[in-house]
């Protein structure tokens, strides 16, 4: 398995993947024209021809047979072309000592606070491949890339996690709030934002802060909560140093988590090493390894051993990275030490 930049030849495979995601992944709509456009942008981005505001680093996960089985992406910056909206979950206190009243009312403030940050997005792994190191490789490969090309990214990285919805894709938060203003299904709104139609958010959303006491109990209970399927992804990003700072999605109230770019474990701990080919041995541990290239970027996860400035991997790993012994790599332990 390797992670590499997307290519136009991947388009049919991507469309297949998009069709299997269901609702909740706004950045991977199953729309051929949009996907083709996106892939085109990604190619341009990896070539270095896109400004940070437009940069879309879209990676694919490819197995050794050359089949695309997953995707992940990093946006150079959000909100620099079109406004980026979140709710900030603030607090209103209604208090009177004399009346012995103290009420805390979480209040949603429509905000563009996360503008300009880089964003992890579009993570999707085919169900048949959710095993072994695949998920971690696909997600964390982005951190090695960010570490290698730090100047291409913002000082903060954010990730919007999918919020709660039921088996039918109904989001209680949407039912209680968005529906009143959009008069459409959650999946429609989700699709429209996915295909880049964001102006309607500004046109239709309530502009004033919202006291959550006016939302249904179901809606209140899901603010800042992720969909159960997203729990593992959340746990993984938290282990990398991401945290919830009170920003949520305006449609399903899923948390937008964030981290200082330089403090993300896989960014901070990654090192440049010389590749050595050999036998990693019994005390080898899983490493994330990047060939330090941009357009020809290849990142894999494999057992490896560090020894005096070099990283010892087996021959297959070197082949996957298309590197020879003596070439430079950037590597980091795949996971934080327990």
């Amino acid at each position: 398995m390797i992670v590499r930049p997307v290519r136009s030849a991947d388009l049919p495979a991507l469309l297949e993947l998009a069709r299997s995601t269901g609702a909740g992944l706004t950045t991977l709509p199953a729309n051929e024209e949009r996907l083709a456009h996106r892939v085109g942008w990604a190619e341009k981005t990896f070539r270095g021809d896109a400004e940070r505001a437009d940069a879309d680093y879209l990676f694919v996960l490819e197995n050794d047979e050359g089949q695309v089985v997953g995707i992940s992406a990093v946006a150079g910056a959000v909100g620099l072309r079109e406004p980026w909206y979140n709710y900030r979950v603030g607090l209103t206190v209604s208090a009177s000592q004399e009346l012995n009243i103290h009420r805390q009312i979480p209040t949603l403030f429509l905000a563009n606070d996360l503008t300009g940050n880089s964003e992890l997005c579009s993570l999707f792994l085919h169900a048949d491949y959710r095993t072994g190191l695949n998920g971690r490789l696909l997600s964390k490969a982005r951190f090695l890339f960010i570490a290698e090309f730090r100047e291409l990214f913002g000082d903060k990285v954010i990730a919007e996690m999918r919020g709660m919805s039921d088996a039918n894709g109904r989001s209680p938060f949407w039912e209680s709030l968005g529906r009143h203003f959009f008069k459409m299904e959650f999946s429609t709104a989700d699709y429209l934002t996915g295909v880049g139609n964001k102006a309607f958010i500004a046109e239709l959303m309530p502009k004033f802060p919202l006291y959550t006491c006016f939302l249904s109990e179901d809606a209140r209970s899901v603010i800042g909560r992720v969909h159960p399927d997203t729990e593992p992804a959340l746990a993984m990003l938290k282990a990398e140093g991401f945290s919830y700072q009170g920003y949520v999605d305006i449609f399903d109230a899923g948390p937008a988590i964030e981290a200082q770019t330089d403090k993300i474990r896989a960014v901070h701990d990654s090192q440049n090493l010389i590749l050595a080919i050999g036998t990693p041995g019994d005390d080898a541990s899983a490493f994330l390894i990047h060939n330090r290239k941009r357009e020809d970027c290849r990142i894999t996860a494999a057992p490896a051993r560090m020894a005096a400035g070099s990283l010892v991997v087996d021959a297959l790993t070197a082949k996957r990275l298309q590197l020879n012994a003596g070439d430079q790599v950037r590597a980091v332990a795949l996971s934080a030490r327990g």
Partner: protein
Amino acid sequence: MLVMRPAQMADLAEVQRLAADSPVGVTSLPDDSERLREKIAASEASFAAEVSFNGEESYFFVLEDSESGRLVGCSGIVASAGYSEPFYSFRNETFVHNSRELKIHNKIHVLSLCHDLTGNSLLTSFYVERALVDTAWSELNSRGRLLFVASHPERFADAVVVEIVGHSDEAGDSPFWDAVGRNFFDMNYAEAERLCGLKSRTFLAELMPHYPIYVPLLPDEAQEAMGQVHPRAQISFDILMREGFETDHYIDIFDGGPTLHARTSGIRSIAQSRVVPVRIGEPGKGGRQYLVSNGQLQDYRAIVADLDWVPGKPVTLSLAAAEALGVGEGVSVRLVAV
């Protein structure tokens, strides 16, 4: 004969009897002798004061059965709403959320806390015994105040407002309160209204939500209660609507009852009342009912009388009516048809 006159301290016990029977929500009539004593004292001072423009005065009238000395109704006017503390209302507003691209055009109804009605004169404390509902005496109890305003325009503002008690059920619960205020106070409607009477409405208003409330987020029962009149306040509402008061612009912040307002000069009893010299004698047959006031200040009196009056001519009052008004031949009275 039922006679409207300024309240005196000697009326305190009787006034409290009326207050105890008035519905929850008429916070200007607290069942609390200390507050009522202050209210009467303030009224006596206001009637006695020399006033050249509306200020802190408040005028409190009672409707007395002149044979038995029993009080059967009361009403008041505050010269300036919000004179010593802010006067809060919810203003009905409409925002249009429009997306041309999506062909969505939503009119969103919003309630905004405001002080718009500050400085207007405020009709308060209306109460009549149930037996008098739908009689000319109810008209006297309410509109006698307006005749007083007509005779003393310098004492009142250019506009008059009145807060009509809103819907609450037999148990004393208000759906509007439960959906809005309760979130900020954690107490039921009756308790809140009791506190309003004892402390002040402003005291509680300051704990109310200061950001606009999006009405579509409120439960249906609360939306239906907006602008609804409490059955026992219907009489007061109907009288003032016939006087030309307008509804729909403002509602009460606690129970959602309508707040009516009118230009002082356009109020029917003020615009259409006439000042006419008095003759004492036998009122002719085939007349109609009039409200008649003596136009005085501390000795203000108003009654209902059957009169056969021709506009432009003096009015003939019975001796009893003239005595009740404290007027003699040649003195002028102000009258308006019931």
